């Protein structure tokens, strides 16, 4: 029986979810289970339910104050990251209200009807179906990158395995992004757990362009939480964003096998 089929047995699900929630699952078994939870909505939901149940055990723990240096260290670490992403927090557009997760459609519902229709068309154009996960691998990601300036277009970034990052400008507003002379738009990957952003390449305002991505870059995407585009001087190739963040959006797996 394949590993996925084994985990699709509700009895097995429940037992393994409890083992994980209690903390008995270790090593490779734990890593495999966490990987499967990323892709299997039901497994994730059952495990989270048991984590919720058992978390009640913490309610009776007596509190103990950590030393002040812990908060100082947290502040320092986040400030350091803030220096690297120095305009990111100020430019963060309001996130859409979180919807009940249904795998593929979690982000779909946040789009307007016109944009959603466009996304479907683009998916078909690129030959991306809604069941791309095969043998446990991801074949595509997508990010809807929005600007704090509602007059600027939204950029849909589709990342296809073996190809690269396709950028499409959805002209919802009346204003195109203008780039001052000597400046360029630069695409970044922001790690899920924080840390220094990774530069992907320079982009223009031309529609339907692609930023190439090698196998190593594709593999790194599993640790990426957001994509962002900043405005940078053309001649410089700083390792962290220095200019204004114009667009950013959450990177999501475009398909789900749930």
């Amino acid at each position, binding site marked *: 029986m394949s590993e996925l089929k084994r985990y699709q047995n509700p009895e097995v699900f429940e*037992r393994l979810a409890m083992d994980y929630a*209690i903390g008995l699952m270790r090593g490779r078994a734990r890593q495999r289970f966490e990987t499967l939870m990323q892709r299997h909505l039901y497994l994730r939901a059952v495990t989270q339910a048991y984590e919720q*149940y058992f*978390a009640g055990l*913490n309610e009776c*723990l007596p509190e103990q104050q*950590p030393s002040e240096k812990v908060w100082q260290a947290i502040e320092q*670490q986040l400030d350091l990251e803030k220096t690297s992403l120095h305009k990111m*927090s100020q430019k963060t557009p309001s*996130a859409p209200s979180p919807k009940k997760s249904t795998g593929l459609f979690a982000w779909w519902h946040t789009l307007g009807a016109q944009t959603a229709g466009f996304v479907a068309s683009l998916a078909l154009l690129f030959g991306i179906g809604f069941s791309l996960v095969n043998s446990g691998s991801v074949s595509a990601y997508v990010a809807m990158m929005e600007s704090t300036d509602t007059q600027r277009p939204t950029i849909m970034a589709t990342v296809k395995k073996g190809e690269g990052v396709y950028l499409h400008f959805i002209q919802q507003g009346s204003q195109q992004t203008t780039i001052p002379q000597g400046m360029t738009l630069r695409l970044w990957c922001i790690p899920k757990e924080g840390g220094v952003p990774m530069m992907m390449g320079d982009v223009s305002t031309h529609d339907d362009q692609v930023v190439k991505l090698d196998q190593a870059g594709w593999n790194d995407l599993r640790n990426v939480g957001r994509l962002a585009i900043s405005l940078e001087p053309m001649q410089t190739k700083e390792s962290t964003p220095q200019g204004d963040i114009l667009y950013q959006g959450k990177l999501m797996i475009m398909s789900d096998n749930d």
Partner: protein
Amino acid sequence: MNTEECDALLIRCAKHDSEAFRQLYAQTSAKMYAICLRIVKQDQLAEDVLQEAYVKIWHSADQYTQQKGKAVTWMATVVRNKALDKLRSLKIRPQETDVSYEGEEFASHDLAPEQLAHLSDDVQQLHQCLQQLKPIQRQAILMAYYQGYTHEELSNTMQKPLGTIKAWVRRGLEKLRTCLN
């Protein structure tokens, strides 16, 4: 700790509200530190874990929704998983320090009505379900949860064969599952 206030603070953290994060830390860090300390058993290690966990909470706050339950519960899961990760990364289990096991004693014994009244409904139900287990099953499960013991470590600590420990835990969890559902 005001749990509803913590829910609101965590939601604000998702919008990069650093003041909300500071208030959230002030309200929750003592509880989260207690969770870390019981698993890794040493102050410095626990503080390292606490720092890593709160940084992760800051970066992952947008993954929390109220549909997932209380914010403190969500945070406790993050903190606990970080502590278990730290434990896994260490070659040997840290030596125990002067850590009170009041949490385990509480969960093991009957409670007076006035003690139960202070607990949330979920915890009261969990407590009642735990009382239905055999003492040895309950002890094994609580040691696994509070202190992060594996089956092998439980076997060494309780000086019972590994198969016996696995059977106790399995039957205990089955009973809990039936009771909680």
